[in-house]
């Protein structure tokens, strides 16, 4: 092999290495869901018939007793508010339409507790939720001092029976 050829071969080999190194991607725990959620184009996150968030606002509890309620997000199938005390967010209040997230409703099948007469579950360290018809009402602690007991009390302050009438 001539010297020139050897140089050419080694150059090509290095190029090959470089190309394969660049294309090899570290697998990520979210790769699969990324693929699923983009497979059939877009528009997969929220069910077509989901209730508009603007129709959910009126079922939220008012503030009072030193607490202030500030709405933060309102999208189709979802509305959320911060619950604040002394200017600090202590919890997040939310109503969501579970037709967009079937698993959200399914988890209540094993529920052994109830709040306000509706099946209830606790999730992780910070969340308490109930299922009212097709709607999930959830309170999430944003401050460690806001306990599971506080979450239950605030869930009871939603207009749950009114929400149950909403189709």
């Amino acid at each position, binding site marked *: 092999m001539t010297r020139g050829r050897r140089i050419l071969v080694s150059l090509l080999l290095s190029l090959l290495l470089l190309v394969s190194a660049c294309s090899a991607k570290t697998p*990520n*725990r*979210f790769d699969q*869901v*990324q693929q699923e*959620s*983009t497979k059939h184009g*877009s*528009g*997969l*996150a*929220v069910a077509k018939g989901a209730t508009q*968030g*603007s129709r959910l*606002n*009126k079922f939220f509890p008012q503030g009072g007793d030193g607490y202030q309620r*500030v*709405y*933060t*997000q*309102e*999208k189709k199938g*979802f*509305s*959320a*508010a*911060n619950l604040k005390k002394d200017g600090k967010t202590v919890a*997040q209040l*939310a109503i*969501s339409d579970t037709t*967009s*997230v079937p*698993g*959200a409703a399914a988890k209540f099948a094993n529920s052994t507790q109830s709040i306000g007469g509706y099946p209830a579950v606790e*999730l*992780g*360290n*910070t*969340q308490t939720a109930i299922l009212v018809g097709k709607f*999930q009402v*959830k309170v*999430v*602690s*944003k401050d*460690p001092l806001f306990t599971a007991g506080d979450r239950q009390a605030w869930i009871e302050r939603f207009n749950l029976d009114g929400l149950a009438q909403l189709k």
Partner: protein
Amino acid sequence: MSKPIFELVDQLPTNNLTIKVLNALDFIAPGEWQNTVGFVNTIKTVTGETDEDLIQQIGERAIYLYNDSSQGYQRALWLYQTVDSTDKALGAAALANKIGENVSILGFLDSITPKPEKAQTIDLTLKLVVELVAFCQINGIPGDSIGDFVAALGEYSSESFIRMAALVCLDGLIPLGPNFINKALTGISQMSPHDLEKNSTFNTVKEFIPGSNAAGKLNFIGDSFESVKGWMNGLVANNNLSPQGVVGNLQQFVEITEDKLDYVAAFLDVATNYYEHTGTQTLARRLIERAVDEI
């Protein structure tokens, strides 16, 4: 579509000039902003949850939400990126090797051109309008009244707060001086729709600015700026902010002279992307908060 949202959040830098500048503005509200990066880390930070299965569920719902283009999240991120990305090529290339060492602006004087006041006014006011539009894309229009909506805007904290503080300092005070609010308002009132149409950033984002034509959009830009005037005045007054004070804080890591503030502004404009950086963080936080509520 661009990169997956988890990659964008995973790839947020932990140390570059943008981060240094934002940290230097920490004196305005100490500890308000932490540079939270990494998708899983952001989920843990925002939610306080540690259970891996729960974190996976939250992340998956957030990804579904982001990938549904009808939900507005992709558009919001695009807006944050676009309003920040003009004239960035120079900054990125020149600063690629500068991480970890002090940067001297003197080395760049030949290659940067200060913007005329009119262009700077458009920059400042457009960034503010983009913030408003992106807010609505991400959060909808929360509540049932104008009062509810204004209260929702008032919930600016962490990365959203530091973005607005940086807007006031880097795009207001430094290039336009201590009287920047009135200067911008006068500038907008004397501007013609044609002036606006000559601006490349405006042309890129104009379809998302309310108003049927350039004149209508110019009105919206003016009204928006007018409506946050009080908030900006308050921020400046409460923190005794001045161009010299802000530059003094930046001098910890950028060698700049106070007599060339227009150059400092132009340099920061090309060398940082604070809107895109903190906008990505805001978006990730809101997606995660919604995901937690919905799973």
